[in-house]
């Protein structure tokens, strides 16, 4: 039921978390935005943190995800798409792109929706600190 891409991303992350941006940043730092979405009751919680430079470019990301294999793979896919992007570009990442890249079946599309939501929340958090 999982695509090869999901399995690959999941296993890479599991076996070598530090090389795949698993971790956390100081949530109070001025240049860090944190977005946590989902709920234990729904079976998935995603926490994304972005580090942003003066040019509004995302220079680094960290995440942790509680959820099924697709949720973890979606987080990983999202990270790959985020690093090096400007905030404006990042805002335009759509759940559909993540779902397509990972070939998520329709019952797993909520995993990519969660990823998009976490990007939006992380950026909003960062921007609220700047304001």
């Amino acid at each position, binding site marked *: 039921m999982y695509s090869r891409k999901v399995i690959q991303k999941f296993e890479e992350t599991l076996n070598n978390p530090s090389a795949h941006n*698993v971790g*956390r940043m100081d949530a109070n730092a001025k240049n860090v935005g944190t977005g*946590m979405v989902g709920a234990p009751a*729904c*079976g998935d919680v995603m926490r994304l943190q972005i580090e942003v430079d003066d040019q509004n470019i995302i220079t680094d990301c960290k995440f942790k995800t509680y*959820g*099924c*294999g697709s949720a973890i793979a979606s987080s990983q896919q999202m990270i790959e798409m985020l690093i090096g992007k400007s905030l404006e570009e990042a805002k335009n990442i759509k759940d559909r792109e993540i779902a397509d890249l990972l070939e998520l079946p329709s019952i797993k599309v909520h995993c990519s929706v969660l990823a998009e939501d976490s990007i939006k929340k992380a950026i909003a958090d960062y921007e609220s600190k700047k304001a």
Partner: protein
Amino acid sequence: MNRNLVYFDYAATCPVDPRVAAKMQDCLLIDGTFGNPASRSHEFGWKADEAVEKARLHVANLVNADSREIVWTSGATESDNLAIKGAAKFYKDRGNHIITSKIEHKAVLDPCRQLEREGFEITYLDPDENGVISLENIQKHVKDTTILLSIMHINNELGAVNDIEKIGKYTRENNIIFHVDAAQSTGKLHIDLSKLEVDLMSFSGHKTYAPKGIGALYVSRKPRVRLEALIHGGGHERGFRAGTLPTHQIVGMGEAYRIAAEEMDQDNSRIAKLSEIFWNEISGIEEIYLNGSFENKVPNITNVSFAYIEGESLIMALKDVAVSSGSACTSASLEPSYVLRALGRADELAHSSIRFSFGRFTTEDEVLMVAKTTKKVVNQLRELSPLWDMYKDGVDLEKVEWVTH
């Protein structure tokens, strides 16, 4: 098939015992016992009938019933359907109230839902925190119109055992038909239907090393229990269940039950030992919870929750081990196990449950290997879990305002 894959899902289904497969093979080809047991006019039919009746004796013998009380079906699901719908419809003039529990198998819950649509009133009892249905709870819900009680012997997710002896005494005294789904208990617990006051009991073939597609229903003769048949077309099985009897399947179930009667004690004590070894290995994992209780469960099933990790990802990480998760994230509903929910488990625990079930072919090496892998992947997944971070930071997850989607 991958030789390195370990099968720890015997409660879902068992492989056929080689001795069973050998017996079945003799019932397929032109020189074997392939005949239609209903053919009265020639030797082929007589031989097949003889084989079917011998198998019926084996099944009856395992549960100490009269072989005339055993009705062949296609499996425990059909047995449950025949028992519940059949009894409800036959006895509907006595009343329309049926009692069951919230943690029955879907093969019981779905026929009950269907009867509800047809005008019956169903009470779904809550189990206690260990998955057991108490007699007191049943008594509280019995009414003048109660005609049927359906309670499982062993819960398929937890291995929790209900006291069907005590419950049967009460239902018999109160003239309530008592159906027991015993799909998980043949070969696991001794069942003596000559003493138990059970009216209907469902059996599965494949949970006891027979093939899938065969089961049986015990229908008590003393006192006589009547049923309205579900399948019509030839009056086989004394009118309870029409359809040509699948000789090879029946012979397989007979042999499997014969073996169970002979070997269950040694099988079970071996499995109990393995289960103890397994639990000793994994119980040191932080925040691990046994679902059910050791005092009141069969040893072949161990259902545990690992807090702060999700069951489906755990199953995916345990890629060389075949287990099942209570978490039904694989279905569109995204709901954790209804059984764990009914026990009152917190969501994050219900989502993270794994059922390990052992069987006849499980080895100690496999148990040790799976325990080791489990410890490793639980740690790996917690490394990835924001909930684990929060737990370690002392955050109360109940008080967090979650952004649901």
